[in-house]
């Protein structure tokens, strides 16, 4: 499916490693991290830990959380909320898979972008 008014096509889903993430810089905006869980679910978040801006894309993914590589905060991929005792939240971007392509919400992806 091509780009549309609401969705941006950012590539084929098989380019996401299972239990891993790829990054998506946005010119003038916030870099996005796209995650894939063991179940094959795909999530997109700003690539910035609410603690000290750690690159979440480099953390370990388990179940549907990611553990930040810098100081081990656990972040929910679904909501962007920090889990456990930590408090903070990172913006999420709507994602859907259509015909094997990853589509992310255009408006949210371009938030703050020039």
């Amino acid at each position: 499916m091509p780009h549309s008014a609401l969705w941006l096509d950012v590539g084929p889903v098989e380019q996401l490693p299972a239990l891993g993430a790829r990054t998506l810089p946005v010119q003038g905006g916030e870099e996005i991290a796209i995650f894939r869980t063991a179940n094959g679910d795909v999530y997109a978040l700003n690539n910035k830990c609410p603690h000290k801006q750690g690159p979440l894309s480099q953390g370990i993914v388990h179940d549907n959380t990611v553990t930040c590589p810098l100081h081990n905060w656990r972040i929910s991929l679904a909501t962007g909320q920090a889990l456990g005792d930590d408090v903070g939240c990172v913006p999420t971007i709507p994602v859907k898979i259509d015909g094997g392509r990853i589509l992310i919400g255009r408006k949210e992806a371009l938030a703050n972008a020039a």
Partner: protein
Amino acid sequence: MTDTPPHLVVIGNGMAGCRAVEEILARDPGKYRITIFGAEPRVNYNRIMLSPVLAGEKTYEEIIINGQDWYDDNGIELISGDPVAGIDRAAKTVTSRSGRAISYDKLMIATGSDPFIIPVPGKDLPGVVTFRDLDDVEKMLAAADLGGNAVVIGGGLLGLEAAHGLSLRGMQVTVLHLMPTLMERQLDEAAGWLLKTALEGRGQTILTGADTAEIVGDGKVEAVRLKDGTEIPADIVVMAVGIRPNVALAKEAGLAVGRGIQVDDDMVTSDADILAVGECVEHDGNVYGLVAPLWEMCRSLADGLVAQPNGYRGSVTSTKLKVSGIDVFSAGDFSGGEGCEDIVLRDATRGVYKRVIVKDNKIVGAVLYGDTADGNWYFDLLKKGEDIAEIRDALIFGQAFASGGGAALNPIDAVAALSDDAEICGCNGVSKGTVMACIGGGAQTLDAVRSGCKASGSCGSCTGLVENLLALSLGDDYAGERDVKPMCKCTSFTHEDVRAAILEKELKEIPQVMQELSWSTPDGCASCRPALNYYLLCAWPAEHKEDPQSRFVNERMHANIQKDGTYSVVPRMFGGITTPNELRAIADAADKYKARTVKVTGGQRIDLFGIKKEDLPDIWADLNAAGMVSGHAYGKALRTVKTCVGSEWCRFGTQDSTGLGIMIEQMTWGSWMPHKFKIAVSGCPRNCAEATIKDFGVVCVDSGYELHIGGNGGIHLRGTDLLCKVATEEETLEYCAAFIQLYREEARYLDRTAPWVERVGLDYVKSRVVDDDEGRRALRARFLHSQKILQKDPWAERASGKEAHLHQHLAEIRPFAVVGA
């Protein structure tokens, strides 16, 4: 015209079309005159049973749902083998391929789905088949008669059933699946792994992560080539990668079509006189590929058409795989998420994995492998949205247990109620009586019971029961859980238990360990996954398959992540010795990749800071070209071997400490450890290389070499213990290798040598490394064996393209370029 009832024309003589007609007839047999068009030249049969037909378990005759007599008895005209080619909504007629035009009062579209063909070169070669109807099955049977190789593309339900059938028919079957786990839409990773192992056990080859590039052949199929260049010979290729709702007719007729033909709750399309049902429809944004939802749609369609509309509300689906001897069940949503809790039961002996996902005291999903008896019960609770708070503790054990009052009792009363010959430990066949006798005989802890009667010593899933028995018989005297902590919250086993089990049961992959040892989470956590990856690597160096996603970021990227997300790069300088050429290459790299800081480290080498992750493979290639390898400054691995100048130059030097340090580093670099490991060699007791705060330190003296272990200069300063003194460099190397291997094999992941030596005691280490000559040599041999396989420069592998995706962005978004694209 006044007498004849209105004419209902059905396009599609398949499962949904005919069932909808049955539902209409059941409500009012005289309401319509009915004509059914079918593209296939046969009556209505049960499509899902094509799998057993392929496998030889059923014949075509046995799977017919409605024979010709059904059409005759109900006055239905069946026009088979002549597909409808067009719909004229204005004239209210349909025209078939042979030119037959028929008018309708009501039209029902039930055209099902078409198999999706991946658009690769060679897709049209003879020998490439799909799996949708009886003709396809016949083609597969004809190929199987000749034997040879079958390649099935797609490891979903359909593909696996095709593979199973072809394999039973004597073909050599390879399944290619794009995703990392089989049936990933229905099964989680753990169950997918069990399924894969079971199918491989039956002789199928399963390749996951396999991306088809081309189907090769001259005039007919000969092989399938993957994107990574692998070629798999094939006499037949079955494409089973998915289905697409068959919407062509509806689209041409101008009906509202999304992914499927859009219908309302009564299955009416955007044209009030045209209904649609089955796999070809889209209801409320959903399309379905299973029969259960079709039955519900057909009921709503008939109610809406001839009785009181009841309105279709969408379906929750469950899946079972029809491969004899392999029981798999899945239902609902198993992806977890906010507020979801997993209840997991694993029984390795019986090969069972069960996972029920609960949210707000309701079941939202279930994945069952090996024992699917309770699948329907869970599915029922799920569909009804039943509150399961009352039976939560017993839920995972299934309906019989949960409704047998298991939940009402407290767990200790429950074990008290068991008879003496009730089996407690399935792995070792230990009854309650035996466990009680063992406790009566003085076993007061879980460990004592495990060694006394073997109960809970294998898979551990009965640990809870054994602990309850201990509590039952010892009352307040039972000290409770063991003081050695489990590895993490995902398991009740300690690090030592897990390592022992890996060796004993020959476990070689992370999901296998999790299954055999009854992990309570589906895919572990950030603390157990890296530990398991290391334990497997240490136990089975030759067979180890690296799992990058179970490595901490630094080890996955082979560079140290910095607080701004850039990386630092430290090339190895053996023994702290460098050359003008190496220094030039480092300087060039620092310029070329814009290192913002160049620092001499405390480990006698140079650190380049601020390198971008995209540039890592290139900078490594440049450093490789100058002869340098990774310094592993990021790893739970050998870090540096620090040396002083020694007898070469120093007026006090007693031995060639620099040369010995280089030899040690050449032997040990690249070895993964439970934690980082540092070595130093000082040329005399003035100890300029600080050898007595290292994990392994050598202090040279006139008469030989003092070997020191267990030092740490980090958070808690600890001076080394003297292990022994040896006379030669060869012995130094031998003891060093043996000590490292003992640490590698026995320390817990993330234990440095200092706390490990404190725990096990210096005497123990001496008994293994100094007193036991044969043992020491065996340890050294195992270390060298592992090094032979794993001493590779990870930078060189990456520079040549391995794991390239880790360093590149998926894509880049440039807002202005995209608008209007």
